[in-house]
Every structure is written in structure tokens, then in C-alpha cells.
């Protein structure tokens, strides 16, 4: 039996390796846990009924009683991100379908992939600057919610394209072949077989992009700007949660800083809810 026993040296190596991996995991968890802890401790304190139902008043000099809530920021974020998704998700999935089903390894497809990768690495403020120069300064007009949406959609696009491409590549070639062999035109194969099969995976990628966009401040600062009032017109100035947090957290008034924490918690909870809803939809739409 001794022949097959684990030697002490192997046992030691095993313990060291396990210890190292566990230590790394714990170190990575510490900031995550702390973020959630502070978000809940400071953010829950700021939450109240009126926190969600009133606009910020802009009056921050006379104590915390009448600073207002974050209604305009919540609605602004929803509107801006919804429009950004409406632009980026169909476009991005379209590009991914083209890359996988038609472009394949052609030089043009390779060039598209290269530029998409470059775009993924572009800092978000650069998208904001680009939209600022083209749509704000360039048109001689001013800030607007939809300009913020465009900046965010540029940010989302590469994430959507790359994640959708990876998922589409996972759809077995045999499925495409059997559909084509039935005499189905290629566009029908894509719409009726490939996309439904890839749907659950693509939703995950889209959500990552939405979550990233919803938390961005820089592209919105000089495109959608900030405002106090709730605004349903994407052509006007529009408030958003990240911009509100950015402005509040630099305030000298404690109550306003606390409002930033409340807004941050709200943003995290909104993204969490979006995740849950999308996952439920994905599960229901899948038969197998």
C-alpha cells in the first residue's frame, strides 16, 4: 500500500498551493465585501419615501432638511440608458451576426474585429469628448439627453459586439448545416435557428454592456449635463445617477454626501433588478 501513499512532500506542496489560491480569493473578496457593506450602511440611511419621489432642490446650504431626492436622476438614467441600448444592442448584434455568418475571416472582418478591440480599450471620457465636439460644439447647440445616449451607445457597442460574437460562434455548425440542408434561406437560419439558440448567452453580454453604461459618469458630464428637474424630453438637459453622485459627493454638506450614497445604492439595485428580470425572460424563452 505504501507504494501508492501520497508522499509528505506532495502533501506539503498541495497545502501550499491550496493556501495560495485561497489567500488570493480572500484578498479579492475584501474590497467587494467592503463596497457592499458601505453601500448598504450609508446608502440605506439616505433612503426614504421622498428620496425616490422628489427632485433634488439644489438648495444645499441650509442643512439637510430640504435637499430633495433623486427622482430626476433615476428617470434620467433609465431614459438615457434605454435609448443607448436601443441604439447599441441591435447594431452590435447585427455587426456580430455579420462577423460570424458572413464576414468570417475576410480581411474586412478582421479589420472590423481590430477596430472593435481598439474601441473596447478607449477610455469612456473620450467617447464623451467625441460626442461633445461633434454634437454639442459641432452643431453649435447645447447639451441634451440623447447626446448622452449616443456617447453611452458608443461605449456599449464594442462590448455588445464582442460578447455576441463569442456566443454566436458557440452555436454548433451542425445546427446551421441541418437548417440550410432543409432548404432554408440563410437569413431564416440566422433568425429562426441561430439567434434563438444564442439568446440566453447574448442577454448576459448585453446586460454587461448596459450595466457598464448605466454606471458611467464621464461620457454624460458634457453631453447630457445635469439638471434638477425631472425631464422626459431626451432633447433637453437630463440628470442621471452617476452625474448626481459625482456632484453630490463633492459637496461640503453631509446630507448631500449621504444622498450620493443613497443614489449609489439605488444604481446598484437597479442593475441587479435588470439582471434578474432578463434572466427570467431568458429562462422562459428557452425550451430545453
Amino acid at each position, binding site marked *: 500500500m505504501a507504494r501508492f501513499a501520497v508522499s509528505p512532500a506532495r502533501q506539503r506542496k498541495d497545502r501550499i498551493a491550496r493556501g495560495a489560491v485561497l489567500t488570493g480569493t480572500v484578498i479579492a473578496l475584501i474590497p467587494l465585501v467592503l463596497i457592499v457593506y458601505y453601500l448598504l450602511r450609508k446608502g440605506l440611511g439616505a433612503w426614504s419615501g421622498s428620496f425616490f419621489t422628489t427632485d433634488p432642490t439644489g438648495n444645499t446650504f441650509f442643512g439637510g432638511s430640504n435637499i430633495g431626492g433623486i427622482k430626476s436622476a433615476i428617470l434620467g438614467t433609465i431614459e438615457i440608458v434605454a435609448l443607448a441600448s436601443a441604439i447599441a444592442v441591435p447594431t452590435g448584434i447585427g455587426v456580430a451576426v455579420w462577423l460570424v455568418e458572413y464576414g*468570417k*475571416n475576410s480581411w474586412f472582418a478582421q479589420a472590423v474585429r481590430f477596430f472593435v478591440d481598439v474601441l473596447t480599450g478607449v477610455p469612456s471620457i473620450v467617447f464623451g469628448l467625441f460626442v461633445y465636439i461633434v454634437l454639442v460644439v459641432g452643431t453649435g447647440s447645447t447639451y441634451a439627453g440623447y447626446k448622452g445616449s449616443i456617447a453611452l451607445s458608443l461605449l456599449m457597442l464594442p462590448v455588445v459586439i464582442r460578447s455576441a460574437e463569442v456566443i454566436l460562434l458557440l452555436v*454548433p455548425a*451542425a*445546427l*446551421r*448545416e*441541418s*437548417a*440550410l*440542408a*432543409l*432548404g*432554408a*434561406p440563410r437569413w*431564416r*437560419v440566422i433568425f*429562426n*435557428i441561430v439567434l*434563438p*439558440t444564442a*439568446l440566453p448567452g447574448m442577454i448576459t453580454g448585453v446586460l454587461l454592456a448596459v450595466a457598464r453604461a448605466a454606471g458611467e459618469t464621464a461620457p454624460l458630464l458634457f453631453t447630457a449635463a445635469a439638471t434638477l428637474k425631472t425631464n422626459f424630453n431626451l432633447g433637453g438637459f437630463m440628470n442621471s445617477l452617476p452625474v448626481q453622485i459625482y456632484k453630490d459627493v463633492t459637496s461640503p454638506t453631509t446630507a448631500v454626501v449621504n444622498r450620493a450614497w443613497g443614489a449609489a445604492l439605488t444604481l446598484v439595485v437597479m442593475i441587479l433588478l435588470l439582471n434578474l428580470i432578463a434572466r427570467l425572460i431568458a429562462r422562459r424563452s*428557452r*425550451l*430545453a
Partner: protein
Amino acid sequence: MTPDGRTPELTDMDPESSSELERQRQDRSNEATPGPHRIAGTATISPPATIGTDPQAKPALSVKLDQLRAFYGNSEQVKGIDLEFRANEVTAIIGPSGCGKSTMVRCINRMHEEIPGARAEGRVLLEDFDVYDPSVDVVAVRRAVGMVFQKPNPFPTMSIFDNVAAGLRLSAKRGGDMRAKVEAALRSAGLWDEVADRLDAPGAGLSGGQQQRLCIARSLAVDPEVILMDEPCSALDPIATLKIEELIDQLKQRVTIVIVTHNMQQAARVADRTAFMLGGELIEIGPTQEIFTKPNDSRTEEYVTGKFG
């Protein structure tokens, strides 16, 4: 392709040259195709006696390969094959792995070109209609020439019913009684009795053999005239294999069948004629009995007696 995107008539041929052939074929298919009155109400036992319930069923087509060459990049895998698959016959293709059997068969419905870098030369004639003619709509060819793959591959997001209906829906052959068509296809594939009470269950939930018969039903639903089978039983157990073989025997009354197989007993059981391929070339083709008992070529004999391959 016609401007409105519809398919040219594959069966629309010069009446003079093919009339004799046409008539023979018609006779044969009439024999083989009992009218609906003989079928009505027949509860099916597997394998079912419901082949060709449609009195307007198209006659099977013969397939002729004329100097067919197939390439992957610069590598020639099929090296100029001349071969005829006769209408309403089962032709088996045997040969060692990598000899170009599957590649050759995939050229018939132009699936070969779906692989990046793959191309084919020469002619493939459905009766006297060249599927490689520049004017041909590949979609129309694939509706006439169905295919069953090595691994059963029902569409994973679809129910049993939708899998069979998929061929009709995807190829825009809507209209008519979809349920009746699905039932007819499932009966023809000998699967109806096993799934009639759970048509809404996912197709991927069936057993391997049932999945493969589902795939056969799916290709039958679009009413093809030729069916290509690329090792259809290699992933199945002997019982499921037997069912598919019985099915092939039934189906040849209605379609021309080309079956690639590594299993020589299978070729002997199902095929009217057998072709032996080696290194991308056709070595010989003949009645199955002859290929297995007194082949003309010594290489065929060595292969069928298990000396190589």
C-alpha cells in the same frame, strides 16, 4: 433564380428526351405509392405503411455525378467521379475514413461549399438539371435534396412539432394543414406512435434513435426527391439502427437514397447498389450482392473482407 426569388422548377425538363424515363419512373412510383384510400385509418405499427400518403408526391429523382471534383483549399478530396444514383434505389457508399465519401455526398446538395475554402468542380445532375449551374438557387436544390447527418441534431430551442414544422416554416412553404403535414412526416419516419402525445416536448429530450428519426421526419416534411444520409446510424445502438434501416427500405419507394456508411453489414442490408471509394476516387459500383461477393477490383475485395480500412 427567378426575379421574385422563387425556385426554378427542378422537374421541368425537356419532355422529348426524358419522356420514356419519366414514364418508367412514374410507373414505378405509382406502384410504390398507394392511394390515400388504402391508408385511411390504418393504425401504424413501426415501420408504418403510410409512405406516400400524398397522391401528388413528386417522383424521386436520379442523381448523376459528372467528373465531380471537390477541394478544401488546394487539397483535392474528390478526384473526378462519374456515378449515377438511380431513382427509387438505395445506394450505399463505402470506403475507409477520409476517402471523400462524405465530401462527395455533400456536393450533391451543395453543402460542401458551406465550409470556408471548400469548392467543387464538375456537374451534379438531378435528372438533367445541373445543380452547379450558375443560375441555380442553392435553396431550391436543398429543398429537393434532403440530408440526414451523422449526429442527430434536432433544433434545441424547438419542440418535437416545431422541429418537423421547421423545414416547412423555414423554407416558407407555409399554408395547408401544418398539423397534418407534421403528422404525415412523423408517421413516415415511424415516430408518430412514440411522440403523438407529447408533440410540445422539446425535441432534444428524445432518445438518440428517436432524435435521428425526428431529423428524418424533419427532412421528409419538405417533400424532398432525394435524401442524403451521412452515416445516419453511427451514433445509434443496434435497435435504433434497425429501425432506421427498416425506414430506409420504406422510404425508397418515395425518394432516392444515398447513404454513406462505415458499416458494411448495413450496406449489405439496405442498399440496392453499393459504391466503393478509395483516396477520393470511385473504385467500383455495382449491385450490393456483387460488390460483397465477387467484386471486380482487388482493392474492393480487400476492403470488404476487412484486409484494410
